[in-house]
């Protein structure tokens, strides 16, 4: 066996995005020796791309906001398929997690009275997103990165070793998780810079690997998004929840072809931008679904009035949840009312003075001038849907982020449940902070409870992992991984996209079987040092298994809800709302089973109007609801609640 580097830690965090870094900080603060392993350089994780903001009901801009309203918006946005406990914890803890970033040095945009400013976003009743222009993700990554450096400086001062308690293993890709019996015992990976294999022995492993977008051709996601964590978890015996729900962001760039998919932030609409078709019509007014009719404006005047007077007017329909807007754009284009490059027009130029556009949306201004020769202060942008976020993910215990395998934890985009069938913009960044922290805490508590009974890593398992990873390099004359990847992306884009049907999903599953066979024969040239072909060859099985999860679950769920639209079952079904679909490995594929969704307790249900619940729930569920009381709409109640949040 070639040389293998060995490390021993209390907690290994896989992923250095918002979730991973926040988890690592917590574990380190709780005295655990912590390793952070990531595929890219430190500070480059996908979170860096987030633009719009982090949702937290701080009530800085509208004092009526509180955790209950945020909780309600999140469940409404997820069409009541969310794990209620996660949404409750998220709504309650997000403000503290955002404020905490200030103590690490973050500089959010301010309100006139010097607090953190908050912006409007789709599906959020009040301005709620803490932001820094349109580069919020960068601010969050850099802040957490610098906080880790700060902890390392403390360790250097106190223990003469900056990396003794918390160390980042950058450009190191984890290829397998290790178990001792039924518990986690560590992880194996390799370092790109020199091709060396690395074993991390650790009783607790936190997955914070992000999403899956690179299985799709048109995506806003970065190269890291190959579903590694989803696949690793499943192989280790954990379960994946509701993988059929994939968010297509309504506004990605569509021209030029090479940038197709790159995100155009929702803040463009939050700050006044409107969607128009080729006839110049603001078409979103035609697409307000019944469940949302009460909250959205019916005329342009009312919609425009909302920006200045949100209590006197209803919201513009451009700010409907993402799934609705994406489907609407899709329909307009299909009906022949699209823009020249196959999208629709997003117009901010005619709505705001050039100077404020440049100020409020600097990255967008920059992105369009540099990449598309479009001056967004003078011309409309062309936009269309792009694969953006996966709601499905590792099934976890809400309070501790523990997966079903002892010692395995998951937080951030790789985890499932929090966002139900559709995530609201801004809820991911706060999710990372809330559940990243909880995962760090959960993993630390788990390690404490183990005492000295630590699981062991066996050489045999390490060797197996090693051999499997090297296989593509030792095979010769096999398939080119880039070709397989291109075929996978085309398949997912064409057959498992925004609008799905049984026949296409079945065809997709057939093609995935072929890809599975092809990927076994993949071969790459070159050596182990920074070899992108080899890296892709190792990513492919992950992407394929995750794609199979998506396609199989999508085939099974015979309704349309959030990020899952079935042409053959266009309606939302109250029966299906009670069902989670759970993926497990079976043979060399995936098995999907149904599992009941945990019902929301009455005190939280009582935050919603009966009328609203009627649209989502079955008659039996409604029958056992407590009788309607005065509840949440009374102003006293809101006040009490906001007091509570502050306390």
């Amino acid at each position, binding site marked *: 066996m070639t040389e293998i580097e060995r490390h021993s830690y209390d907690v290994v965090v896989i992923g250095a995005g918002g979730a991973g870094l926040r988890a690592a900080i917590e574990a380190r603060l709780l005295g655990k020796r912590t390793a952070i392993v990531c595929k*890219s350089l430190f500070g480059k994780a996908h979170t860096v*791309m987030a633009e719009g903001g982090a949702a937290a009901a*701080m009530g800085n801009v509208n004092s009526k906001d509180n955790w209950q309203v945020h909780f309600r918006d999140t469940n409404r946005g997820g069409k009541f398929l969310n794990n209620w406990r996660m949404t409750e914890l998220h709504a309650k803890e997000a*403000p503290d997690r955002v404020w905490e970033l200030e103590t690490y040095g973050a500089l959010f945009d301010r309100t006139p009275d010097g607090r953190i400013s908050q912006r409007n976003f789709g599906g959020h009743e009040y301005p709620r997103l803490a932001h820094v222009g349109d580069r919020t993700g960068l601010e969050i990554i850099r802040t957490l990165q610098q906080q880790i450096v700060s902890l390392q400086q403390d360790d250097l001062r106190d223990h003469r070793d900056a990396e003794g308690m918390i160390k980042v293993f950058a450009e190191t890709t984890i290829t397998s998780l290790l178990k001792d019996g039924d518990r986690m015992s560590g992880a194996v990976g390799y370092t790109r810079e020199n091709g060396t294999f690395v074993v991390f022995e650790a009783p607790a492993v936190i997955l914070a690997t992000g999403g899956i977008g690179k299985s799709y051709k048109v995506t806003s996601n*970065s190269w890291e998004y190959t579903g590694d964590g989803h696949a690793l978890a499943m192989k280790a015996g954990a379960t994946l929840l509701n993988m059929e729900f994939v968010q297509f962001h309504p506004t990605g760039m569509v021209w*030029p072809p090479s940038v197709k998919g790159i995100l155009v932030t929702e803040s463009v609409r939050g700050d006044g931008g409107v969607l128009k078709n080729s006839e110049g019509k603001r078409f979103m007014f035609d697409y307000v679904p019944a469940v949302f009719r009460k909250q959205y404006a019916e005329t342009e005047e009312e919609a425009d009035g909302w920006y200045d007077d949100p209590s006197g007017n209803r919201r513009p329909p451009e700010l409907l949840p993402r799934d609705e807007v994406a489907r609407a754009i899709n329909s307009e284009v299909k009906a022949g009312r699209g823009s020249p490059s196959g999208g629709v027009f997003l117009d901010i130029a005619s709505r705001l003075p050039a100077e404020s556009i440049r100020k409020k949306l600097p990255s967008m201004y920059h992105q369009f001038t*540099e*990449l598309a020769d479009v001056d967004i202060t003078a011309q409309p942008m062309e936009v269309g849907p792009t694969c953006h976020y996966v709601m499905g993910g590792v099934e976890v215990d809400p309070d501790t982020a523990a997966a079903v395998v002892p010692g395995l934890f998951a937080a951030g985009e790789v985890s499932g449940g929090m966002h139900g069938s559709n995530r609201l913009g801004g809820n991911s960044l706060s999710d990372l902070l809330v559940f990243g922290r909880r995962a760090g805490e959960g993993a630390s508590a788990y390690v404490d409870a183990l005492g000295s009974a630590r699981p062991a890593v066996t050489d045999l398992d390490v060797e197996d992992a090693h051999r499997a990873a090297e296989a593509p390099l030792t095979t010769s004359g096999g398939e080119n991984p880039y070709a397989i990847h291109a075929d996978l992306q085309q398949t997912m884009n064409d057959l498992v996209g925004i609008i799905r049907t049984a026949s296409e999903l079945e065809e997709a599953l057939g093609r995935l079987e072929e890809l599975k066979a092809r990927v076994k024969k993949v071969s790459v*040239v070159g050596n182990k040092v920074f070899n*992108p072909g080899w890296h892709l060859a190792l990513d492919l099985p992950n992407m394929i298994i995750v794609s199979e999860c998506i396609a199989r679950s999508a085939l099974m769920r015979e309704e349309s809800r959030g990020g899952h639209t079935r042409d053959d079952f266009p309606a939302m079904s109250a029966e299906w709302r009670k069902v989670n679909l759970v993926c497990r490995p079976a043979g060399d594929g995936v098995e999907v089973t149904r599992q009941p969704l945990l019902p929301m307790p009455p005190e939280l249900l009582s935050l919603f109007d009966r009328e609203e619940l009627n649209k989502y729930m079955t008659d039996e569920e409604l029958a056992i609801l407590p009788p309607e009381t005065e509840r949440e709409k009374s102003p006293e109640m809101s006040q009490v609640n906001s007091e509570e949040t502050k306390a």
Partner: protein
Amino acid sequence: MGYNARFKVWRGDNTDGDLEDFTVEVNEGEVVLDVIHRLQATQTPDLAVRWNCKAGKCGSCSAEINGRPRLLCMTRMSAFAEDEVVSVTPLRAFPVVKDLVTDVSFNYEKARQVPAFAPPPELALGEYRMDQLDVERSQEFRKCIECFLCQDTCHVVRDHEENKESFAGPRFFIRLAELDMHPLDVRDRTREAQETHGLGMCNITKCCTEVCPEHIKITDNAIIPMKERVVDTRYDPLVWLGNKIPRRSGAAASRSLHSGDVTTAEAQARGRLRQKPTDTTALTTLQQALHGQGRFADAAGASRSRVEHAGRVRTARQGALAAHAWELLCAVESGQLDLDGVEDEIATTLQQAQRLTSTGTVLAGTHALHHLVHGRLAEAAEHAREAIVWDRDRATRADDLVTLSEGLAGLGESEEAASALAESQSLWPDNPRLAGVRSNLDDMNVHGRPTPAASVDEG
């Protein structure tokens, strides 16, 4: 719409490498990173390149395109003519890992040396109040995507390994400025910047600002305001000179030093070497002080010891080897050493230096002088021209121009030779090499400008 473009892409690792030619399809609207990806998918599956977002947000895909530090994902192909050969090489200031990927750990080490934001302990969560106007100044610097292009382009460390230890670079000057201007940070960042991060070594060339893809006004808004606040700081000339002086042209800094300081520096360096003969910093200072006095043969003696004691760190070795080759060549050029006696040493030193160098062009100026002392005038002129394209710092360019001028003069192109000489003199009037070469040029009827009195530069 599509066409076939010609590319030269640097391929290799930290021991060896070269530019490789490719012909590759380019389509409408594409950026250089698209082309690199097409090369991976169709011609060179193991071509190493870093990238993440492909949207100019993560700062991973930094490289040099036609010698200019750029983001691969934000450089559109439409910026080049269809018949133009586009070269893509790794960042030159950092050691190569493979192909276009460099080892940027220098930056992470520097990051760890900047003390973190210290929160005011009396404020509880949610109690921070800051004015938008006050946070905006620091927010500009927090736009930084850590692409390290500014670090790559800054002449203080580009090709000057020896300066890396004491110079944090523009990326960390803005980090210090950001903390300095943070409404709630109380540390004195300006003095830190000056005393431990080498702010004084920056001579405000603004090259960093020019390459920043985030358009951060690094010099105007961070460096200059911090420099203005530094008062009454006195320097040990030894440390100062050691830090300041570039690789090849040891006396560049003497533009702003009185000649007495060069001898003082020599004396101090010798003093330190009596205590510790292997002190490479002192050896470097000694070499540079001697170079500044035009004593190239003696300088070569010092650089020889530098090579002996350089240790195994790749970058330190490279710096010492390159400096040594340069001193030997200057000594031969000025007649202080005999070519036959040192040619073997020059050839091996240069070869070893080349092997440790990330891109082919770093040593072009040295190769030019090597050709010149062998009388290969056309090659000398060609390499010197190439070097001029790449070398940005004044003194190094000035040296390249001297070599070019001599080569051209030998080829009978007196007019061009004279203008190269004049340009060189204006960049660096008291280059010690000029004294030796002027008589050669006079013989060939090539005259630069009359030497002005040494101008004193602010530094």
